[in-house]
């Protein structure tokens, strides 16, 4: 019918829409993009020219210094001639930058620790990977002890625990040792923990509590502590390496990882304490957190180095690295507490009320309901605190512990490598190492943030 109509009148009716014509050339593609982002208006053009000038001023000399003019092989002479980065310097000092003065024959130990750490950390960071809980227990609980024994060599000869300070067990059993475990110490340990377990159990009974359960917990704790001490005391046949020989990236990582592992649980406890209804607990947490957050880290390190030894019994000396570690851990814990508190505050009241309605106790509420949600919320904040901690580890060089930056500075003074470019090469190398660690951490935190908010986006 319509065909006939069309044929009769000769009219034309379009069946399809005309394809939209492209925007003008000046509005699309590279040209359009450039018109909008590079040359829109006189101010924009000026900015573009200034930026190009800046890039021209910085980039070519940098590339020339780092790659084109650089000396890649040879010795000091080659570097003096090259007039660019002195990479042989980095190559020659590489061991020192990574391990400090850790004995060369024993460097497989830090290497093994690095490898184990990476192997355990990777599945912890890959979000869909299974066995997260087990993985976390191994990484935060067992790995530090293994690393400690591997790096120091273990085999600490311990002499007395608690009762041994009063009763000289060594007098009865003599200096007998079995695979590095001294008989007198372990006799002391077993008797002391048995006494503690029974005292705790008896006191609970006196107050009318469940003595058996409490005693069981106390027994398990002392067993765990015993295992940890045994691992450190056991003679694995490793050559002991003093911490003063440690250095470079090894120390940087040891300080950072210890700070991270210790500060997270401590920070969670402090954050819970700050929101506690018990006035003494709350006051203690607030004062602790605000005090450490109000002072610079360097004063904390000085506190640990010069003041802490005065507070301990005369004969007791603490290892210099351990002192710094204590300072860094306490400092980081205060910052971590504030991050965790932010997460706790974001949990709606209904969650607490729901848990209370189910009859959950305080620790059950926190452990099963509140903390899992709160900690997930603040993962980016936690990672940012870790980045800050990682960067702050450089400060230990002020209290004479030579981390990566300390080793760099020491290497600059080596007359065998005194060239006009040594300094810049060293800084370039250090910058790359620090940047890789911090940048990957920050990217990871951004990734987790996006992943977590995926459900909230439309």
């Amino acid at each position, binding site marked *: 019918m319509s065909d006939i109509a069309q044929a009769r009148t000769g009219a034309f009716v379009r069946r399809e829409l005309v394809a939209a014509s492209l925007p003008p050339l000046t509005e699309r593609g590279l040209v359009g993009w450039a018109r909008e982002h590079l040359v829109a208006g006189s101010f924009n053009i000026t900015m573009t020219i200034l930026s190009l000038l800046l890039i021209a001023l910085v980039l070519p000399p940098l590339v020339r210094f780092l790659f084109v003019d650089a000396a890649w092989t040879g010795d000091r002479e080659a570097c003096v001639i090259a007039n660019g980065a002195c990479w042989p310097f980095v190559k020659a000092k590489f061991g020192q930058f990574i391990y400090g003065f850790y004995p060369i024959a024993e460097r497989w130990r830090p290497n093994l620790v690095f490898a184990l750490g990476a192997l355990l950390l990777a599945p912890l960071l890959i979000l869909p990977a299974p066995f997260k809980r087990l993985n976390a227990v191994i990484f935060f609980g067992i790995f530090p002890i293994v690393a400690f024994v591997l790096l120091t060599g273990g085999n600490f000869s311990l002499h007395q625990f608690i009762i041994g300070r009063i009763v000289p067990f060594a007098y009865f059993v003599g200096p007998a040792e079995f695979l590095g475990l001294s008989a007198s110490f372990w006799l002391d340990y077993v008797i002391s923990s048995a006494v503690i377990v029974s005292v705790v159990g008896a006191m609970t009974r006196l107050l009318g509590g469940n003595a058996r359960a409490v005693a069981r917990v106390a027994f398990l704790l002392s067993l765990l502590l015993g295992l940890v001490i045994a691992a450190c005391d056991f003679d694995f046949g490793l050559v002991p390496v003093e911490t003063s020989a440690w250095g470079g990236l090894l120390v940087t990582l040891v300080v950072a990882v210890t700070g991270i592992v210790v500060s997270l649980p401590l920070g969670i406890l402090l954050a819970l304490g700050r929101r506690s209804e018990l006035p003494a607990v709350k006051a203690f947490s607030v004062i602790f957190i605000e005090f450490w957050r*109000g002072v610079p880290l*360097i004063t904390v390190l000085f506190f640990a180095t010069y003041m802490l*030894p005065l507070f301990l019994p005369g004969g007791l000396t603490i290892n210099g690295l351990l002192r710094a570690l204590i300072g860094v851990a306490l400092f980081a814990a205060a910052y971590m507490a504030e991050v965790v508190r932010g997460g706790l505050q974001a949990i709606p009241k209904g969650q607490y009320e729901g848990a209370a309605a189910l009859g959950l106790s305080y620790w059950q509420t926190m452990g099963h309901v509140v903390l899992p949600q709160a900690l997930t919320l603040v993962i980016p904040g936690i990672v940012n605190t870790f980045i800050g901690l990682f960067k*702050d580890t450089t400060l230990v060089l002020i209290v004479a512990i030579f981390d990566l930056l300390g080793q760099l500075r020491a290497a600059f003074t080596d007359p065998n490598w005194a060239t006009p470019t040594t300094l810049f090469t060293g*800084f370039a190398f250090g910058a790359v190492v620090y940047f890789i660690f*911090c940048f990957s951490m920050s990217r990871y935190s951004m990734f987790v943030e996006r992943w977590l908010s995926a459900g909230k986006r439309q």
Partner: protein
Amino acid sequence: MVVIAERAPRERSSLLTDPRVRSILIQAVLLVFVVGLGWYFVENARANLAAQRIATGFGFLNVTAGFGVSQALIPYSETSTYGRAFVVGLLNTLLVSGLGIVFATVFGFLLGIARLSKNWLIAKIAEVYVEVIRNLPLLFQIMFWYLAVLATLPTPRGSFSFFGLAFVNNRGLVVPEPVINEGSGTIGIAFLAGVVLAVIVRYWARWRQLRTGQIFPTGRTALTLILGLPLLVYLILGAPIRFELPELKGLNFATGIRILPEFLALLLALSTYTAGFIAEIVRAGILAVNKGQTEAAYSLGLPPGLTLRLVVVPQALRVIIPPLTSQYLNLTKNSSLAVAIGYPDFFALFAGTTLNQTGQAIEIIALTMAVYLAISLFTSALMNFYNRRVALVER
């Protein structure tokens, strides 16, 4: 029919399950632990100090220090006391932190705005800068500025000259020294008068705008008053303040004020580092302002500049100020890293040199921590006050 539930026989409940008893018990344990630890520390410290024959107390503050200081804002010599060195160090810390805060804020705001620029190149450059600077340790950057940049500059003879007015070399920056003659007090009075007049003009302009709607160019007028008035007096009085230009005599500059390279390195590192963080805060603050606000301002006919100043920035400031405060505090605390390059700040002079000489570890470190705590608390109180003023008034 009402069924009365049979009452369960009351169990003999433990004292430990009574929440009141529990809370008292937990707090008592904590208290005993803290007090015990404190007592243990104090007892040990007393015994250790007695064994080392170190006298306690703050008497050492009145003892002659006997060391020189490379930069002092108040008169100081080797015969001055440790107490004086304390003040000198504190002033140096305040100087470097104050200047650092000003530079970091200006640079950080510029960077933050640049990161949001429509110009792709500028935005990218700002992004790369922020990423690089934020992911390198501050101490690393201080060392870089000190060892790699400032120490490798030419000697005074080959100084870089800024139009013959200032010179920079490996011994620092030399700037013209003002020589103050008689009558210069009047210039100060003129300056104060200019400030007072500018404030009056501002109030008058606001009053007039509220009544008539006419806008008065307050900013330009205030600038003219504050700068112009002292300049006018200066010219009328026949230039009583002269600037003595730095002059090279022999191997070094004889005249002019020399600014230490340690100070420059610390100031540069602190301001460029903190600026990276401030840039991110500013960017987040501006992004937090709803796009509708900008669009509404445009539809009212406000040009982009005024929109930014009158609509976006005041709202963004509410988001910016709390984290900005903590950056200022960080900068002040970070200035203690001066000890690594030998700038005589409070920490280096007091916890460094004075501690080495006197050995009064407990007093000195406690006092050092107290000073930084006081600075922190004071700054956060000040910023909280400002924050309350710009905070949203909810009606």
